[in-house]
């Protein structure tokens, strides 16, 4: 009997105008948003390839060790096409400088660099699922019982040997069965577009994540189907049921997330980031004072009051790529770098305490908002989808933590191998090549120009490159699916609980309904 009811409802829904309109809209919107998503992904891949090349060139084209300020770059995931999460708000590139532990990633992760275009809405596949399919769910379920009551067919049906539980299960099953082909068609369209794109290549892990996303989408839709069914079982007329369903839909999808975001921001307040930067600036001021004292000390030791550089192509708390400069100036600068470089790292660690406190508050605020927003099923869908598609906060934090650990490893290598104390830290010249007098320096520079014929003043490539083969390199280890889902377990459980409660109260309401 259940199967008969399921089959009948499935055919009724499948051939109804509301399903056809919704299906056609999905047929247009899903490929469209996925196509735009692939374009964004393509531009991100191109950017990643350029950034990776630049990151490698930092090592291959370094002429002195002070020039090497590594970059950590994260490869964009094709799953971001499904759900962009926070991936367009955070960068994909981290500059690992000696003077600061990185707080945020940088780099443009959208297709457009014009920041004024942030004003416009950008949708992804999960947004479309959340809005359109939930709306279709409401439209298919709002009159599941109320229509039968209005038409008088419910009395007729229940006066036969049809159990109420069978009828309930049949109706619910019919609507759920209607959605499965709709959802399958949406995902098939997505796959067709992804397979056509030459930039997109999915791994086994990606397919597993997409399968989980499909199952979770079904769970999300079930919420709205059972919500619609419950209201339909309580409402006297279909129009009342529809109005209440639509208001709840609008409230859950658009009003509640914004309200919860606002509430979360007030529960956990964060400092203005410019204040954090200004406080870090105070530490910078302290650093420069200490450096001033250090400078006086080194001047006394070397007997050199003023510097004279013949060619200096950079700066990193002291001259970098210092060439054709006399030995007394070079000794001075070496002593300065030897003391200053570790001090720069120490002050970076001190500044990190301020940054870390600020970041912890950001994480806490995000978590509070996430838990509050779990009252809205569309937000639960977005958070779980972001986790599956590696565009959630936890994935980004994991990348940043790995980048910071690498930075520490890199500069510890410098300390352990006494690179700060060597001439090669700031000059391409070996100690034996350094001119002793200004006349020697001028002659050396003139001879270099004649033989090397540099393209510009700072084209020092003929002076050679430092060896970087022993230097540690950044390798990013991605999180597994289970790690990602573990972060979202709580809100996932809330949605399952909500669906279970809705099924139970709808069933109870229908069982107790007085047919007279």
């Amino acid at each position, binding site marked *: 009997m259940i199967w008969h009811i399921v089959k009948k409802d499935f055919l009724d829904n499948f051939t109804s105008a509301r399903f056809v309109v919704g299906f056609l809209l999905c047929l247009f919107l899903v490929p469209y948003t996925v196509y735009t998503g692939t374009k964004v992904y393509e531009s991100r891949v191109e950017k990643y390839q350029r950034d990776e090349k630049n990151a490698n060139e930092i090592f291959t084209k370094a002429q002195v060790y002070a020039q090497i300020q590594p970059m950590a770059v994260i490869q964009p995931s094709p799953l971001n096409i499904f759900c962009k999460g926070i991936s367009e708000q955070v960068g994909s590139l981290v500059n690992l400088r000696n003077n600061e532990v990185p707080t945020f990633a940088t780099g443009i992760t959208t297709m457009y660099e014009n*920041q004024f275009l942030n004003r416009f809405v950008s949708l992804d596949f999960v947004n479309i699922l959340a809005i359109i399919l939930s709306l279709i769910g409401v439209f298919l379920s709002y009159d599941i019982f109320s229509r039968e009551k209005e038409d008088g067919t419910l009395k007729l049906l229940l006066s036969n040997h049809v159990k109420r539980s069978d009828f309930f299960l049949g109706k619910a099953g019919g609507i759920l069965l209607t959605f499965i082909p709709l959802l399958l068609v949406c995902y098939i369209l997505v796959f067709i577009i992804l397979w056509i794109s030459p930039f997109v290549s999915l791994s086994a892990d990606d397919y597993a994540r997409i399968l989980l996303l499909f199952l979770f989408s079904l769970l999300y839709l079930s919420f709205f189907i059972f919500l619609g069914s419950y209201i339909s079982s309580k409402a006297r007329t279909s129009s009342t049921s529809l109005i209440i369903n639509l208001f709840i839909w609008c409230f859950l999808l658009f009003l509640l997330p914004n309200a919860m975001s606002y509430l979360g921001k007030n529960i956990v307040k964060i400092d*203005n980031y410019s204040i954090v930067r200004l406080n870090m600036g105070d530490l910078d001021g302290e650093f420069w004072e200490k450096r001033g004292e250090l400078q006086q000390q080194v001047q006394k030791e070397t007997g050199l009051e003023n510097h004279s550089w013949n060619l200096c192509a950079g700066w990193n708390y002291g001259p970098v790529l210092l060439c054709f400069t006399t030995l007394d100036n070079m000794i001075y600068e070496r002593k300065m770098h030897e003391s200053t470089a570790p001090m720069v790292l120490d002050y970076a660690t001190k500044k990190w305490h301020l940054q870390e406190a600020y970041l912890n508050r950001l994480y806490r605020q995000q978590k509070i908002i996430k838990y509050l927003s779990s009252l809205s099923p569309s937000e639960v869908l977005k958070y779980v989808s972001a986790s599956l598609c590696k565009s959630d906060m936890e994935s980004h934090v994991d990348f940043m933590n790995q980048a910071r650990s690498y930075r520490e490893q890199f500069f510890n290598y410098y300390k352990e191998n006494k690179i700060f104390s060597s001439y090669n830290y700031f000059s391409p010249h070996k100690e034996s090549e350094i001119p002793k007098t200004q006349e020697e320096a001028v002659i050396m520079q003139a001879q270099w120009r004649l033989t090397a014929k540099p393209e510009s003043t700072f084209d020092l490539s003929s002076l050679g490159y430092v060896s970087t083969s022993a230097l540690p390199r950044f390798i990013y280890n991605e999180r597994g699916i289970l790690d990602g889902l573990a972060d979202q377990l709580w809100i996932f459980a809330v949605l399952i609980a909500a669906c279970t409660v809705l099924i139970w109260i709808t069933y109870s309401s229908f069982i107790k309904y007085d047919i007279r």
Partner: protein
Amino acid sequence: MLKTIIIRELQNHLYSLRFIIALMLTLILFGTSSVSFIIEFKEQKSTYEQGMTKIQENMKNVASNASNFAQNINAIPFAPRNSAFIASCQEESIPNTIIYNAFNVYGYDITKGNNNPFIMPAKNINWEFIMVLLFSFLAIIFTFDAVAGEKEMRTLALSLSNPVSRGVMLTGKFLGTVIILTMCVVMGIVMSILILLFSGQTMITYATIAEIGGFLLLSFLLIACASAIGLLTSVLCYSANTSLLIGLMMWLILLFIIPHTTLLLSNKLFPVESSDVITQNTNNSRKIIEASFPDGKWHSESNNPFTPDHQIRANMQMEFMLGEKKIRDNWYNSQFSQYVNTSKMTLISPMFIFEMGNEHMLNGGFQRFKNNWDDLHTYQGQFLAWFKAFDAKDPQSPHWYNPYEDYSTSKSKINIDEVPVYSESIIPFAQRISQSGIYIALLLVYSTIIFFVSFMLFVRYDVR
């Protein structure tokens, strides 16, 4: 007869479940918007004042050396706006800080401020948000069964068999919806203003009252436009459910799909160079300029500002700055054009027209940024003139202006009170409302055209 139909429609709406829910939601949201504004405005003002104090302290520290003071890069954020309870104009997501010193206005940025980049984007709850999201939705909900419902219940034939012109009937239904929703908006606004007044945190000045009036006019037109759309779908469909579904789909298309589409098209139709190309062009410009300067251009001596090489170096650095400025200013102007053209394309959506109308009327968003950008260029000229006059009085300075280094200009201490100060200009309301006139006219035209189409279709509808 029109009056009778309007009164009948008003009565039907007033006793309906949808009106009760709509009114409850309106009052809750307007109340929430006021409370959230009071709390956030107080915080933003406090952090802005803190930030400006820190900037002043930083400037005092740098004031010990006039050259460093002039070269010091300042990032001036925009102050929190008093009228943000009406509309935020997306100021938190577009550039809201301009970077400058005495020599150049370098660019702009979005200050992170109190924003959390790890939170999925959410809109501020303000009056504009309520109108764009809730009231456009309500307009569809209130009109979807205006005609289609009567077709289904077969009361349309009965109504039309009376001596009632179709135009009057349709106009009555349209006006009934517009009036009831406008009443809800007015009640919400009144409640919101009372909360603001009782809080004592916000000043309601004559300018604010004028802005509220302008907002109400735009809201009335948005409601009219959305109601016309709902009425159109109602006239087109035989079944109320199908009418509602199509109406909601159109609502989603106008609210989300059109802005998303224009965003995608903006890069194709109005392309802008990437930052990598700009950096490459800047580097090439530097190479060409550097090659044109003689030897000694990078030589420096810290104890003798009058070293002749310092003049070469200063001229070269100035050329670098001007070369980069030309490239970047062209790039910025192309970004501004891209945004303006994308906005023009998005004017297909009545919700976006409403937002643009508010932006112009309140001088927020991009309008505010552009006004500040232009004014800051004027200020930078004044700042540079002040520095040059100060430097001219110092006999220790050779007066060779270098935008990046203090080798060849005055290193004397300055009196910070003598430095010209930048302050944001206030645009008179009359000018602002005239700028938003085009958007008011557009909404009026949209409403008229859509209603006219509904009217033509309704007049031709065969009741048999």
